[in-house]
């Protein structure tokens, strides 16, 4: 019963945060310097088009009324029309979302696989030379600007060695029958490699350091000592007994990492001209395409908020002590 109330209040909190972020977004885009209509109306539209849009978003009404129209439109998935593409923002954003998600998840899977293995290894080799060198090196990868790492990889592997293409998702002019054909093509994977590598090098530090410090905690526990006394091989002790128990907090951190990654994608997508949400946000903001910028921002925020929720729920699910308290 307690678990259900805990989950219920966490869901309510999520709704509250969503509402607050949506409201902040509304205020940011309406109260910015310049024409308050600018958030929806392109000055290049004809007067009739402008009037139609004014009515649709209630821009001739007082601010509080506009706010409720905005909320109503949002609930129906209506984010307005892009100035640049002249198509609904929602359509555009949903078309870009898969690219961003593929980039995010493939890089995080690589980062977590490496981080978990390397983290356990470093915990096992605790106090050795390898460990003394590895920990500062890992901290240094966290200190890199992601886009700079992308630039270096581009300069070396694309422009100097010519092994990988310089950006985008497909060769110029290539056409595919639908999304599935594109995502499974060899071209796509080749284009995906450098951005994924960039993000993976940057992200592996979190699971690695987390895994290492959890392992160090778990290795002190009685059941690990017991396994050692039983005479099991060090490998069995580390992998079968310690690593399995140290994995839990690393698993929940994956959801948080998705949320962080999707914000950080903005720069890496720009470096590699990867057609995702982040690059679209940057382009929309530079081109004063406010409806599109607002929509892309909102979509990124929704992913972040959902991932925070999933992390908390996972944590409660995997470690019942959290809800029982």
């Amino acid at each position: 019963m307690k678990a259900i109330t805990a989950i219920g209040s966490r869901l309510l909190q999520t709704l509250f945060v969503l509402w607050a972020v949506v409201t902040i977004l509304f205020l940011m885009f309406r109260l910015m310097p310049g024409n308050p209509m600018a958030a929806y109306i392109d000055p290049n539209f004809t007067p009739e088009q402008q009037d139609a849009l004014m009515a649709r978003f209630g821009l001739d009404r007082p601010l509080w009324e506009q706010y409720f129209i905005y909320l109503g439109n949002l609930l129906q998935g209506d984010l307005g029309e892009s100035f640049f593409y002249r198509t609904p923002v929602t359509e555009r954003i949903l078309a870009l979302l898969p690219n961003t998600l593929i980039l995010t998840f493939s890089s995080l899977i690589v980062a977590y696989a490496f981080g978990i293995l390397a983290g356990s290894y470093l915990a096992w080799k605790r106090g050795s030379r390898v460990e003394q060198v590895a920990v500062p090196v890992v901290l240094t990868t966290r200190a890199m600007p992601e886009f700079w790492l992308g630039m270096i990889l581009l300069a070396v592997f694309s422009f100097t060695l010519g092994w990988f293409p310089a950006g985008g998702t497909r060769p110029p002019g290539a056409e595919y029958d639908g999304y599935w054909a594109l995502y499974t093509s060899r071209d796509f994977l080749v284009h995906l490699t450098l951005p994924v590598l960039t993000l993976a090098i940057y992200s592996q530090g979190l699971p690695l350091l987390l895994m290492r410090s959890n392992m160090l905690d778990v290795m002190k526990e009685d059941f690990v000592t017991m396994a050692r006394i039983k005479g099991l091989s060090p490998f069995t002790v580390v992998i079968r007994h310690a690593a399995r128990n140290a994995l839990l907090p690393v698993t929940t951190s994956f959801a948080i990492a998705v949320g962080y990654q999707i914000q950080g994608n903005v720069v890496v997508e720009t470096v590699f001209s990867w057609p995702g949400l982040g690059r679209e946000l940057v382009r929309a903001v530079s081109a004063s395409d406010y409806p599109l910028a607002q929509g892309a921002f909102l979509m990124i925020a929704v992913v972040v908020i959902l991932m925070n929720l999933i992390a908390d729920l996972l944590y409660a699910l995997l470690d019942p002590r959290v809800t029982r308290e």
Partner: protein
Amino acid sequence: MTNPDTPRRAGRLRRAFAGLRLPLHDPLAIAGLAIYAAFIVIAIFAPQIATHDPTEILFTDDFQLAADLRPGEDGYIMGTTTLGRDVFSQLVWGSRSALVIGLTAAFMVALIGSIVGVVAGYFGGWTDTLLMRLADVAFGIPFLPFVIVLAAFLEPSIWNVVIAMALILWRDTGRVIRSQTLTLRTRAYVEAARISGSSDVKIILRHIVPNVLPLSFLYGSIAIGWAILTEASISFLGFGDPTSISWGYMLQDAYASQALSKRSYYWFVPPGLCIILIVSAGFFISRGYEKILFPKLDR
């Protein structure tokens, strides 16, 4: 010839220094502090160290634009940019904006986070609920996109990053310091102070703040790095202050001028290395504070 004032002043200086609680027992933290000291010296003496004006467009002896010169050519230590500007001088001047942004943003984050955390933790009740729900909202806002939108709406300025960090990034510091305050509040000496009639303000300043200070420094030293990385990203995306030379600006300039396909490594590698050095120095120092705070955790 002894000056009676000197020892007392030295004592005061030492006490102020001790107030910073610098982690001077950890080799990595000392390395971090040394890197900071070096960058501070470079930033202060930037006009003396730089060989050229970082924004000046330079020409060769035969009146050609000194564009894309390799390091050492015509006496330019690290070569020149496509617009004929000196890379080395830009790198030196870049340390100024990095330090100014990093230190002010870190100060704001640590200050706001500590105040929120102490107030929420000490007073509890609706104050706590309100502040922590605010923190929840701050956790729901994607930081980099927020800075981009803010920087686009405000005038281009290096302070946009500082404002955005002050508005959003107090959240982590605030939560941690709140839970620290919650445990401190139940300690016997705080209880004793309360019973003996000390005011809330006095208890907070005397008993709570000194104990959360190392945590504030820990989060502050991480925030320096965040600020520098964020400024670099924002400048790289073209929302930075075009009038101030920063490492992020250099990288944006290099990327936009096709330095990657020209393989002008001498142009875009050094600014990145400087960022890595100064940000990881912050991480190293923060690990030193961690060891002060959690001695058992000494790994």
